[in-house]
């Protein structure tokens, strides 16, 4: 019985590393290389368009690192990280990477990884694969432990937007999504408001209402609209509702 054909994508910003992977994979039966990407943006686009079974993913790349790439994907292929850095290994397995190849590695080690990938894919077809990580797990692992999110990654079709957190105006809950508002534009991100809020620096972002998290630097003033009913007026004139609990949190911070 021959193993099913695996469609693989190589993501690495270094030419020799790509060439090596191409050479190794070319000699393996049952592998088809569907593409090569040299940075995180290309990778997000290519994974969306080519739908590979398997991605060999470098961690440190221009624009988006490997973890940020995963954060932006809805359907994730099997992932094998390839990096010279061993300090990301724990984070890699938190996002359910199948394997973690430390550069430099040889053919044998790559074959082991391919075996694991086949096992994982077979198991997921049989329905016994470990559950895919939730968006919050991914969001947590996309940043180093003990750090707050420094930028929010947003996908608009195959386009990726990177918004530094200081450019955020406010976040609004929309069912399973968050509407992210920044400089007059907005995007939907597949994540809950609570998860995204948890990743942000609590001294800069406050949950003023069940459905709103605001960048405190954007608040121009707070007005009393009715009895026990306040609104936050942002610098651009927008008004956000402020709940009683939200007002208490704001007061504590300011």
């Amino acid at each position, binding site marked *: 019985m021959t193993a099913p054909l695996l469609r693989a994508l190589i993501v690495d910003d270094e*030419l020799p*590393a790509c060439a090596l992977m191409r050479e190794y994979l070319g000699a393996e039966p049952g592998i088809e290389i569907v593409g090569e990407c040299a940075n995180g943006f290309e990778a997000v686009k290519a994974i969306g368009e080519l739908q590979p079974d398997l991605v060999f993913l470098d961690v440190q790349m*221009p*624009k988006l690192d490997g973890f940020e790439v995963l954060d932006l994907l809805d359907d994730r292929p099997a992932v094998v990280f390839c990096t010279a850095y061993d300090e990301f290994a724990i984070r890699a397995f938190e996002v359910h990477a199948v394997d973690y190849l430390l*550069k430099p590695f040889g053919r044998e080690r790559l074959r082991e990884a391919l075996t694991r990938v086949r096992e994982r894919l077979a198991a997921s077809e049989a329905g016994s694969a470990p559950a895919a990580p939730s968006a919050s797990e991914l969001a947590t692992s996309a940043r180093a432990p003990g750090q707050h999110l420094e930028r929010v990654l947003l996908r608009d079709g195959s386009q990726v937007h990177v918004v530094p957190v200081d450019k955020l105006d406010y976040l609004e809950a929309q069912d399973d999504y968050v509407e992210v508002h920044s400089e007059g534009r907005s995007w939907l991100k597949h994540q809950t408001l609570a998860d995204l809020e948890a990743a942000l620096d609590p001294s800069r972002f406050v949950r003023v209402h069940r459905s709103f998290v605001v960048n405190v630097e954007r608040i121009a003033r707070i007005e009393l609209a009715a009895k026990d009913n306040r609104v936050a007026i942002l610098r651009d004139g927008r008004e956000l509702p402020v709940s009683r609990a939200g007002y208490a949190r704001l007061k504590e911070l300011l």
Partner: protein
Amino acid sequence: MHPLFAHRKWVALYLIGWLLGGVLLALFFTMLRPRPLLHAMEFAIPLNLIFGFVALSAWWVCRSNPLSGPRPVRIFTTQMLAALQVSAAWFVAASLWGVVMARAVSETVSRAEILQDAGTLFVLGMPLYLVSAVVHYLVIGFEASHAAERRILQSDVSAREAELRALRAQLDPHFLFNSLNSINALVGSDPEGARRMCERLGDFMRRTLALGAKDEVPLAEELALVDRYLEIEQVRFGDRLQIMREIDPATAACMVPPLLLQPLVENAVKHGVARRVEGGCIRIAAHRANGRVGIVVENPVDPDAPPKRGQGVGLENVRRRLEAYRGRETHLEAWLEGTRFRVEVTLPAGELPPAVEKEKAS
């Protein structure tokens, strides 16, 4: 063991000193009560030598009662009691020796006269012992300051060692891993290239270790190391890594602390070029004016990239090393100019005189 016994010469000098002291003491006795000088010397010199050794006991008393101790009154009483004991011992010894002498020399010496001589020694012994105590305190103080000096020197040496260790650790091991991976890739497609890469990597490591062991190196050597480094990185990054050199030949022989430039260029690659999709050009410039050397390392940055930890560490390291090298005569500045990050180092343009260079070479 008393420090005096560390050298025979010191013991001899000490004995001679007390011998001469014995002669003086004998003269003193002849003045006190007329008698033949020879007899006085026979009496005084052995007693004086004995006292010389007994006075050394102050060493142990001083050591167990250091002046830095909390109770000066107690130190004083202890020393006075010790003086009293030493004097008493001298008195007893003198009395016995006096009796022996009186019998040996059939001269009529009364008991009262012997007691008078011994009593004189008793009175002399107290201040003599106290002088000995003072001298011992001085010796102890001197040794302590000496030891402190040695400790400072030692900590200087260990600080330098730590700095070197840090220097070597600063050589990013990931650079090695990535280079090995490049070699791994070249082995298949370009075996000759793989060999060249091995050679460069070996050369780079060797130069790094050799330079790191020196106090200062000519800028040309430092630049050669940087060239090796960049050659290796260019294999990894290909066209993405461009280099522009503007080196004033007059700076080549100027001395700089070793591994000054390499970390700056490494930063420029790691945090600048490597994080840009399109890569970029690193500019390395060195010029000389008004007795100073200015070195510039400049790289493009990705404006969207968040600052990564570790970026400032390399720079801070270089700053500290410059300070240790020439203190305020050196200057380091780093700033973002648009999308280019620029580090400028200036330091006095000192060249090694040719004679010294020859000496070092031999």
